[in-house]
Structures are given as C-alpha cells and as structure tokens.
C-alpha cells in the first residue's frame, strides 16, 4: 500500500520530466556508422600509454595508439606499424616500418617517432621498463628500419613490444611531454589527458572518471572491420547500476560483469554473455624456504619442505568442485602455471594427478611425520580475483578432511600484496594469480615465480615461498636465451616436469573473462582480456 503510494508520487515526477523532454529529439546517429556505448567499473587511469602497466589501460589505449607488432583475434602476433621483424643476429633485432601511416593530426609516422616512443617507454617515469630489461640500444638505421641491440639473446622482444605504443614525437615535443609524468612534481603532464597516436580511433574528448569519447579515424592505414563512427566509454563503478544500464539499453556493452548477474543477462532477450578463459592462472603457494613456518603449530621444522605433505594437500583440493560450486562454472582448471594460449604451454603435461581419498592423503601425511595433521594459516585476498575468498573457504573444508586445519586470513589487496610478496613474504601458505601478459611466454612465469629468488639477477622476485630447485634454475636460464624453437620447447617440457613433479605450487584455474552486450553487438573476446574496438560491429 505505502509502497504503491510512493510509486505513484514518483511516477508523477517522472511524467513531469517526460513532458519536459518531449520537445527535444535525441541526437541523430551518424549516417556513416554507429555509436557504441560501453562501460567498465574503473576508468582508464591515464591517456599516457606508458603511465601504467595494467591490462585495462593498455587494452583501451590500443584503440588510439598502435604497437609495432600487434595481436590478432587468437592473440598471435601480426604486423602493426612494422611490416616485418626478426633477428639479424642473436643479439640484434630489426623492425621494418610500414610506410604511409599518419598520426591523427595528419603528420606522417616515421622511424624517428618509433625510436622516440621506445626511448620514452624505456625512460624516466615509465612503468613499462620490464619490457626493456634486455635492451641495450635502439637505433634508427634508415627511414624504414630500426634496429635494437640486446645485452643477451632475447627471443621474445617482438612479443613483449606488442603493448609498447608509438606516439608522435613532434606532438610530444610541442606539448612538453617528452617523458612520462613525474608524480613527485606538482604539475601535470600533457600526455596524461591527451593522445596522439595512429590507431583506428581518435581521442575526441576526455573527462576522467566520467566519460571518454573516441571517434573513428577515417584515414587509418588498415581496413576497418568495425562499423562505428563514435565510441563513448563511461565509468560505472556500481555493479548493479552497470547491469541496469545495459538492460535499459543506455549502454551497449559492459566490460566487467558481476558473476551473480551473468545468468540474468544471459536469459534477458536483449542481452547476451560472452565468456572465455583468461591468461591469468590462479594458484596456491607454499613456504618452502623457512626452517620453521611463521604461522603453524609445527615447531622446529617446516612441513611444506616435505614433498609428501605438498602432494597430500595438492591432491586433496578438488578444482572441479570449486568450479562447480564456487565459480558457477566460470573457471577453467589447469595443472600448469600457464594457460593454453601462452607460448610454451605443454598440453600433454597439463594433467592433474588424480584426487586422493582422505585416507590416502592422511597416510601420506603420516609417512611424513604428521599422523594427526597440523595447523597452518592460509592467506587470501578478498578483492583481487574472482571469488578469491570463497575459493579459500572451500579449500579450508577440503583440507579439514585430511586433518590439515587451515586458519584463513583474508584481507584487502592493498594490504595483502605488501604482506605476501617479497621482501616481506610474511606468509606460510597463500593465493596469487599471474598472467605472463608481458611476453605471452612461459619463461615469464619461470623467471618470476619459480626460479630461486635472487635480488641481483632479479630472478624469482615473485617466488615468496623461495621454492628452489637447481635443476629447474639451470633449465630456465637455458630457455631464456635459446632461440631454436624445437630445442627451446624440449627445455620447457623438461622444466615443466621438474616443477610439477615437485608439487612446487598448486595451480587452480584460469578465471573466465566475461563481457555482456546487447544482442545487436558483435565483438571479439581475446584471452588477454584486451577488448579491442576495431572488431566491434553493431547491427
């Protein structure tokens, strides 16, 4: 009754608003193409392509800026601003540039722009330095060719640079944006809010955290597969509102879909769900290094140093059950630390050892000297991965059955990572996720997550459990510099066997990338979650 009254009053207000709106017609759509409106929970944090090394920023800016070598729909490399590339010597790379490419202001793209951009990305304030770790010198050889000297043979340079975008040198000079913005200064860098690239879309207007408008670049060198004239990107932080805006037709696509709404949107006759596996693998890690665990009731020794304990735990965690109950089917279990689209993924090794019955697992623990199990704290983020905390809660139950009592410590990512990662590594058992998006190659995982931590060589920097196997280290070092594909794959297979048979980590799954769109939108979902406007078609 009362609710009805309120509704009536509100409906009255709406009627007034409608009456107000009546004399004004909606803006006419461009006859040449469609206007595509989409939204995400967070904004693009900057228009500067080197300001942040984060998936969403790079995915968004690939519409405005272009790399030398770009990724196609299957995430494979294809010519971008370079038509040809390769190695002339183990330590020398060349890129032959595409001719006739123009920036959005009409000026031609030259080798100087490319050299400038690469140096800017490798310079002060840039967050892309990881992609230049092997680079010694970037040289312009001619107007159509640049060469790069590396300090070690680097077979992955082209692959890494698929996220390094090329910016106009003249524009940067004119606007005093020669380096990336410096946070310790008080003034803003011009490139933070403006952009000058050569990509399929131009930046038309930008209101940070509100709305960013792009328009199609009619002079783009490539043949457009999209049929858009304008793209409006809005930020809608609240999940329920985002879904409502999609259902009401105010927007055509949402990028981050709350898991609980996928069913509703899938059933709605006007909307659809597009889903696929992401490159990131979510996994659990053990403290292998310490003599005594920081958070356990076992004193004087570290149960995780015994392979039987790791095996018992690994083979008692049911990833299929997690997929079914916690993830609502939106996960793709893996047994390796890399996902199938990544270079060096070994399909025949991606076999999870069979689950143990609780009695078998208990026997393994008893053999290792823990007939009554033990207690350990599991660290978990609450807001980083899809259902992260719920997965951990499920694992608590699974391990209770084999006598391992888990104390769950869940916290926000802002505190979590500072505690879990090196140098603190203040944890005994934890959850992390990793995507080798930097190189799209398994070596990224080897060197960062599995090799022995070494501050000097910068290896094992994200191996807080200090897993260390000299044989693995040796193989991974060889993989890094082997340029022969067959030999390299053999080394990778061997290294993969080492860490899986050691039960060094417990890989769980790839989480799903989920987009939702109106029925009339055709788009391509790629495993690196880099939503590209150049493949969007609207009926």
């Amino acid at each position, binding site marked *: 009754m*009362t*609710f009805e*009254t*309120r*509704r009536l009053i*509100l409906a009255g*207000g*709406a009627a007034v*608003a*409608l009456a*107000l*709106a009546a004399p*004004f017609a909606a803006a006419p759509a461009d006859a040449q193409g469609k206007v595509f409106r989409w939204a995400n929970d967070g*904004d693009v*944090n*900057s228009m*500067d392509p080197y*300001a*942040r*090394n*984060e998936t969403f920023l790079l995915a968004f800016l690939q519409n405005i800026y272009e790399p030398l070598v770009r990724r196609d729909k299957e995430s494979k490399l294809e010519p971008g601003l370079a038509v040809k590339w390769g190695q002339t010597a183990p330590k020398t790379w060349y890129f032959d540039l595409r001719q006739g490419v123009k920036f959005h202001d009409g000026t031609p793209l030259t080798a100087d722009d490319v050299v400038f951009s690469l140096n800017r990305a490798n310079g002060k304030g840039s*967050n892309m*330095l990881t992609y230049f770790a092997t680079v010694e010198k970037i040289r312009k050889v001619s107007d159509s060719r640049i060469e790069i000297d590396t300090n070690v043979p680097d077979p992955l340079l082209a692959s890494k640079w698929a996220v390094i975008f090329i910016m106009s040198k003249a524009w940067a000079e004119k606007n005093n944006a020669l380096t990336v913005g410096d*946070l*310790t200064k*008080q*003034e*803003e*860098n011009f490139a*933070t*809010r403006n952009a000058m690239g050569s990509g399929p879309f131009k930046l038309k207007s930008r209101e*940070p*955290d*509100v709305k960013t408008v792009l328009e199609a670049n009619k002079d783009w060198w490539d043949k457009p597969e999209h049929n858009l004239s304008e793209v409006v990107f*809005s930020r*809608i*932080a*609240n999940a*329920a*509102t985002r879904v*409502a*805006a999609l259902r*009401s*037709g*105010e927007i055509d696509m949402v990028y981050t879909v709350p898991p609980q709404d996928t069913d509703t949107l899938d059933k709605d006759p006007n909307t659809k769900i597009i889903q696929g596996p992401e490159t990131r693998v979510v996994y659990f890690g053990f403290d292998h290094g310490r003599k005594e665990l920081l958070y356990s009731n076992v004193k004087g020794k570290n149960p995780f140093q015994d392979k039987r304990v790791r095996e018992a735990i690994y083979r008692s965690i049911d990833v299929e059950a997690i997929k079914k109950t916690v993830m609502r089917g939106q996960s793709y279990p893996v047994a390796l630390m890399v996902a199938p689209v990544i270079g060096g993924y070994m399909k025949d090794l991606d076999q999870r050892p069979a689950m143990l019955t609780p009695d078998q697992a208990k026997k393994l623990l008893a053999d290792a000297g823990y007939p009554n199990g033990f207690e350990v704290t599991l660290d978990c983020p609450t*807001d980083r991965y899809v259902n992260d905390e719920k997965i951990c809660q499920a694992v608590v139950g699974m391990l209770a059955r084999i006598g391992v009592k888990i104390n769950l410590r869940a916290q*926000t*990512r*802002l505190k979590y*990572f*500072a505690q879990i*990662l*090196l*140098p603190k590594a203040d944890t005994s058992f934890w959850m992390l996720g990793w*995507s080798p998006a*930097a190189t799209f190659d398994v070596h990224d995982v080897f060197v*960062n997550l599995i090799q022995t931590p070494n*501050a000097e060589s*910068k290896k094992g*920097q994200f191996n807080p459990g200090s897993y260390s196997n000299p044989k693995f280290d040796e193989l991974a070092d060889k993989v890094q510099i082997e340029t022969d594909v067959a030999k390299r794959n053999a080394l990778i297979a061997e290294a993969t066997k080492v860490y899986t048979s050691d039960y060094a980590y417990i890989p769980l799954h790839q989480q799903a990338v989920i987009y939702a769109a109106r029925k009339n939108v055709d788009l391509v979902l790629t495993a690196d979650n880099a939503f590209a406007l150049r493949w969007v078609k609207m009926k």
Partner: protein
Amino acid sequence: MIAFLIRRLFQAAIVMLTVALIAFVLFNYVGDPINAMVGQDTSLQDREKLRQDLGLNDSVPVRFARFVGNAVQGQFGLSYRTAEPVGRMILERLPATLELSFVAALFALLVGVPMGVYSGLHPRSWTSRILQAVSLIGISLPTFLIGILLILIFAVGLGVLPSFGRGDAVNLGGWTTGFLTVSGLKALILPSITLGLFQLTLIMRIVRSEMLEVMRTDYIKFARARGLKHRAVNFGHALRNTLVPVITITGLQLGQLIAFAIITETVFAWPGVGQLFVTSVSSADMPVMSAYLALIGFLFVTINLLVDLLYFAIDPRLRTAQAATRVS
C-alpha cells in the same frame, strides 16, 4: 560580533587540523599505494625506489607536516592513480556534488516542510497517517536500495530516466552545470530523490512535532481569538516559530548531504567528489583522500559557522543574550 567571528575562525582552524591529522594517521592503515600503481612484474627494487621517491618511507609526522605545508599554499600534489593535479580533480568534480546536494536539499525542504505542516495541523487525518508511514520507509530503507529500486523502475522498467551519469553538462567558466540541458535535468531527478529522501523525512518529522507543540501555545490561541486568518496564523506565526530547529537541522544536513553523497554518487555513477573518494580509497590514493577530507572538514566548519550566523538573524533572543554577556 567580530570577536565572535574571530573566535569561531580560530576554533575552525583547530578542527581542520585535527581532522587532517586523524585522516592522515588512518590512511596508513588503508594499505600500500605502490602495489596499486605498478604492474605485477615491476621489480622489487623499482617498487622500493618509487616508495622512496614519493616520500612514503618518511615517518607520519614528517609527511603530515609536508602535507599541511603544501595544503596551506593550495598545493595538493598529483594523484597516485591518475597523475593529475589533485586540486583540479576535486574542483572539477565539486560542481556535480554541490548541484546534486543543492537539488536534494531543495527537494527535501520544498516537499518536507509542507508535508510536516500539513500533518502537524491535521495530526489525525488519513493523509497524515499515510505521510507518516511513507516517511518511515524513507528513513529506514538504505540509500543504496532506494537508488537501485528507482533505477529498476524508471530506467530499466519504464525507460524514462537515465540510470547513470550526469547527462550533458555545460561548462560555464570552470563550473560544469547540469541545469541547462534536458538530459542534465533528467539525470538529476533520481539521484536527488535518493539523496534527499532521508532529509525529507527528517524535516517533515521535525516540522510536524514542532508544529504540534506550537499550536498548543497561548499566543496561537490568542492569534485565533484576534480573528486572524488561518493562513496567517499557521504560516505567519506557527511555522515561523518552528524554523529555528529546522534551520539547524537543514544546515547540518546540508553538510551531511555533501559528505554522504558518496553512496548515491556510487549508485548513479554521479561524477562528484564522493565517487572520487571511493575510487581513491580502493587504490590507496593518499593525496586525493587527504585533500578530500580536508575539503569536507572545511565544508562542515563553514556551514556550522553560517548556521550560527543565521541564528542571529532569526532569533532576536540570541542577539540580546550576546549583548547581555558582553555587558556583564
């Protein structure tokens, strides 16, 4: 009057400093901004260097002194998240929040006062009871839920009002306004109802109880005995005397509206300072958080000061009391 002003300004400065200090200490528990700033494979050395460069390794008193020193000169630094000047980020978003709060307050007053007067004059009527019941809903339903319900009804169900954003805002020399376009006005409706509903019910209830009180007093009876019109009695005498508490509450609530527009702004993706604050908390963007809290502290202090001054204007007794203290 001047002594009073100076005293209040001095108090205000102390309040501001205290607020800033508490906020600053609290931010140390929000988390580590560095992890939100760098890519996953940024080396530990680079992370440490960034932390050093930003001065995050300094002690809290040192950082606080630096913050206050800069803030006094109007410098709030660059956001850790977007590398934009914090002062400009806040100024750009302030009009959206102020317009929303203003419309919400106006809605609460224009609807709440008549509702209160009506149900104060006719406490036993049927309509009054309905109004009371409706106001109970307004006061007990969480803002978040009201917002989502309104969106579901008017945006998804009827498709007549936008579910998010501010429509087309017009920029008038640095002040963006949604008042000048149809889409801007339409976009204001749902958020301001959501934000103002709580205030509306509060005002209605206060006006009602004050009216009930005042209508029982002798001077109202005498006024009626003098044969004054109902209208003159109700509005000229009764309502006027209920206004002091209403103004106090409205003034304080205006500050609340601005400060707690956070939830409404988040629900409606309203591009105001509240939403900026929420975003900043989730990435531990300390420069923005500090500046925002300083601003909110400043708003509250200013509004309270203005309310005190309004008392002077409305209630002559206060003026005489002040004079009396000065004499004695």
